[in-house]
């Protein structure tokens, strides 16, 4: 895209963008505060965004804080990725009805909503790209995921204030959105005023900007000039210097493969609760199981697909028992899958450095620290 399609929006212009997307029959889903965290919910107004709210994140700890400014995107990623929208935690696959000896099977109807995702961070764009590969680019594509995926419009945002557990720089996935968006925003809060540089990433995104230009008031949406671009570049560059965590990925695949019997796995197992939180908040984990829900009379049944996790005992249940009965083997499976075997399986790391598994682990277990411990005491 050439520079001429870039725009500056004031807060009123951001509202015009939300209005325009809604007028085009998109349900705009954006960040908002609920129960002491920033979560995603349908929004209609910029007033629902977390104005002036930031976060403090560390292993096993998350708190909102007042920033003392007007930033609308001055927080880093919250507990939910966009996974729950594109790959829901519970999904009907089919239902069946028995009539005498006959069984009629009814596949579930997939009727995906048109979602405009507002405020998607770079790590999460990479996570969505990973899910695309895992769920749609293999022998049997996940049709329901693909249908939902085809019905989203993505408005990304550059991270300005990374969280205490972020390490996207180590993983090469952020903090500046580089792909996978229709529009990308960078929020600017400098003496030139509260405004957003908007860059289109697709022809569809550019068209929305054209329409916005025609629609919004002159003082709310205007052409971007060079100082705006420089300021926006600086936001990303500063953010990259303030990662809360780092992971040395040099030779990490071979490191983990060579250390399957490292004593650190037992050490982490003494702390790990086998609670599954890390996997369920991880935006790339995709494991599920199925629940067959029958009625008492045995005449109807429903097959539901539900999120599962390699931390559950029954996840590795084969005939006669669970293969991974020890928690150390489950933690090793998680870390090794994310950082090593994922590369063999899908060609990239399975970790985008969002830090959610660290923040939302009730036992404050930190994958970057565990890997560092293995590296420092290699057998």
């Amino acid at each position, binding site marked *: 895209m050439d520079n001429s399609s870039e725009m500056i929006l004031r807060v009123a212009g951001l509202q015009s963008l939300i209005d325009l997307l809604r007028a085009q029959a998109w349900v705009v889903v954006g960040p908002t505060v*609920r*129960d*002491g*965290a920033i*979560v995603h919910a349908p929004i209609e107004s910029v007033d629902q965004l977390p104005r002036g709210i930031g976060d403090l994140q560390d292993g*096993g*700890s*998350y*708190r909102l804080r007042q920033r003392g400014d007007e930033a609308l995107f001055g927080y880093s990623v919250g*507990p*939910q990725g966009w996974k*729950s929208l594109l790959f829901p*935690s*519970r999904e009907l696959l089919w239902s069946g009805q028995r009539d005498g000896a006959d069984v009629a099977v009814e596949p579930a109807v997939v009727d995906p909503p048109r979602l405009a995702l507002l405020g998607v961070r770079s790590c999460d764009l990479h996570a969505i790209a990973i899910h695309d590969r895992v769920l749609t680019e293999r022998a049997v594509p996940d049709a329901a995921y693909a249908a939902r995926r085809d019905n989203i419009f993505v408005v990304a945002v550059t991270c300005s204030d990374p969280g205490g557990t972020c390490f996207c720089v180590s993983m090469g996935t952020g903090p500046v959105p580089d792909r996978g968006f229709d529009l990308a925003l960078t929020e600017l809060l400098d003496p030139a005023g509260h405004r957003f540089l908007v860059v289109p990433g697709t022809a569809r995104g550019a068209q929305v900007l054209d329409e916005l230009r025609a629609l919004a008031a002159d003082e709310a949406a205007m052409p971007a000039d060079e100082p705006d671009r420089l300021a926006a570049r600086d936001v990303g560059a500063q953010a990259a210097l303030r990662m809360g965590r780092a992971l040395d990925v040099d030779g990490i695949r071979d490191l983990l493969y060579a250390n399957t019997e490292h004593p650190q796995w037992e050490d982490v197992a*003494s*702390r*790990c*609760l*086998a*609670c*599954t*939180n890390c996997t*369920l*908040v991880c935006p790339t984990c995709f494991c599920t199981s199925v*629940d*067959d*829900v*029958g*009625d*008492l*009379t*045995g005449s109807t049944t429903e097959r539901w697909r*539900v*999120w599962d*996790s390699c931390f*559950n*005992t*029954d996840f590795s249940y084969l005939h006669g028992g669970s293969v991974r009965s020890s*928690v150390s083997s489950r933690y090793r499976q998680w870390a090794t899958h994310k950082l090593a075997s994922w590369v063999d399986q899908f060609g990239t790391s399975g970790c985008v450095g969002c830090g959610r598994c660290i*923040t*939302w*682990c*009730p*036992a*404050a277990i930190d994958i970057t620290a565990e890997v560092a411990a293995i590296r420092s005491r290699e057998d």
Partner: protein
Amino acid sequence: MADQSRPKLAVWKFASCDGCQLTLLNCEDELIPLAGEVEIAYFPEATRAVIEGPYDVSLVEGSVTTDADAERIHEVRRVSRRLITIGACATSGGIQALRNFSDVAEYRSVVYAHPEYIQTLARSTPIAAHVTVDFELHGCPIDSGQLLEVLAAAVQDRRPRIPSYSVCVECKRRGAVCVAVAHGTPCLGPVTQAGCGALCPAYARGCYGCFGPQDTPNTQSLADRLHVQGMTEPNILRFFRSFNAGSEPFRHESEQHEEAAL
């Protein structure tokens, strides 16, 4: 419709509050289909009609707290083809198992005007401590959906689909914000078995452990974490000592904090 092929169901009560049996009565819409699938042969809470044993399925609520109960449970086992215990009392001794950590004779003398009328055992014990149990359904009270699943499985002669993973799984599936991480509220969810749908965390409360321990509960790690977050030793002890105080992992963990709590 008393055809011979319908399995006979009996519901038995030991020391309990009746809440779990009420869960069965509260199944409302499912009660009529249930009555079509099983013959409700013995259920004093619901009907006075009694059909003689033996029974195909017995649901047992409550714990064993008296000599008479300790004898009666063998009788129940004898007349039951499949014995399923329901609720925290039957599966772990219930809230009344708090007596297991104190001196019952002393309570008796302090609380009752005529302690000599009270006949009770020193400990409240789960049914499985006395007889072989075919399936244990946890919860205080049990979940009606899970109860119907267990009954359907018994009727259809298959394994019940009752997960033994943690409450956190249900908490994350429903999109609740973790109260432990985001609010610093003590939560037993990581060591507790799912079944309630993460009811309390969804209302910004910590899990109380109603469904007993999950299949691989690391209570020590959770206790360490609570300690770091400022919970006192007496409170950690009490945290593990509620409806499922008598379950092995929770009992063991609470006892680790006895000395420091004195």
